[in-house]
């Protein structure tokens, strides 16, 4: 297995620089790999697979090209694009993973997540998340007109921006105790996630592994920190502009 993992691109039409950086990254960093993972928030907003613009079409084509070259391509939902569904997966040749995905390689158990569900100190967000991610809400939203959905997405973004401006950095990070609990419950050794935009490699002392690791990937606003995973190990690497 030779994998590359990225997250939090927040692609949107009015940020062509990020789209181009993503294409450049894919041209040079995916050669020879067998698995490609996008761990959430590929898009800044996603209002349903039935909504398509030239921009979305372009991204789908980019992803299609990738999946034609790489055996296994996966994505996970982020808090921005949790409405991505089967149609999108089919159109791009990517497979949708569960929010909490585990696998083993060379005796190490891996856990992949977007990460937002571990920000448990942010009770306001956790409550909103419970509603937003419920099947009932999804169905309700996807049943509305495109115009309604675009408006709703805009409102949600504004509410989130207002709410987050008051929150401490600690609240908006994943809760360390929750990470420990989850990694011990799933008996995992290496946890890779995004969401917080705080790239770093953390070492954890867990009951089953005193040298467990948590890899946090960055967003694509500045230098990009992504993960490579192969038989030699797991690394957090940087893709930066000159």
């Amino acid at each position: 297995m030779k994998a590359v993992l990225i997250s939090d691109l927040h692609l949107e039409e009015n940020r062509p620089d990020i789209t181009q950086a993503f294409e450049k990254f894919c041209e040079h960093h995916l050669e020879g790999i067998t698995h490609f993972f996008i761990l959430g928030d590929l898009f800044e907003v996603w209002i349903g697979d039935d909504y398509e613009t030239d921009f979305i079409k372009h991204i789908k084509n980019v992803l299609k090209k990738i999946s034609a070259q790489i055996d296994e391509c996966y994505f996970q939902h982020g808090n921005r694009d949790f409405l991505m569904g089967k149609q999108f997966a089919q159109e791009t040749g990517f497979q949708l993973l569960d929010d909490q995905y585990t696998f083993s390689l060379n005796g190490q158990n891996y856990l992949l997540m977007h990460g937002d569900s571990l920000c448990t100190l942010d009770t306001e967000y956790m409550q909103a998340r419970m509603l937003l991610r419920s099947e009932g809400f999804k169905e309700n939203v996807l049943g509305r007109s495109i115009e309604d959905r675009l408006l709703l997405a805009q409102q949600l973004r504004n509410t989130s921006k207002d709410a987050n401006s008051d929150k401490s950095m600690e609240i908006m990070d994943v809760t360390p105790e929750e990470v420990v609990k989850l990694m011990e419950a799933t008996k995992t050794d290496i946890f890779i996630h995004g969401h917080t935009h705080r790239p770093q490699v953390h070492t954890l002392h867990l009951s089953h592994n005193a040298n467990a690791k948590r890899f946090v990937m960055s967003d694509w606003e500045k230098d990009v920190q992504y993960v490579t995973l192969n038989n030699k190990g797991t690394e957090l690497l940087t893709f930066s502009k000159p």
Partner: protein
Amino acid sequence: MKVTLDTNHGTITLLLDSEKAPKTVENFKTYVENGHYDGTIFHRVIDGFMIQGGGFTPDMKQKGTLAPIENEADNGLKNTLGSIAMARTNDPHSATAQFFINVADNGFLNHTSPSPQGWGYAVFGEVIDGMDVVNSIKSVSTGNNGVHQDVPKESVVINKASII
């Protein structure tokens, strides 16, 4: 103004655009004249993207620089194959001595707006001779060196930079 970079892969000749990028060219000229680039390396080489140099010695020590300059990326020059531009940190106006030569069309490095995300990278000239040398450099084998990635395994050295 023309500048040659005499490297251990051959000579690259650059034509600098002092009309469209006056401050950047003046800055580059100062570093050429004070000998800053002599003995520095291309320390970051990514085929299909760019080759970056002018800041490190072969033992990967960063050389001291003059004050950072204003970013002239809004001058209309584009990051196309064979163009030379200033490297910088995430701050748009932080370029000092390091530069890069685009070895592909890198549209995402162009100026789009006067914002931290949109400033882009200031192009100030182009390679007019020695693209074969650039191509030879972009193809060298690279690896990690400390915190640095994409570092040529065998140093690509600028022996001497001269104004001609």
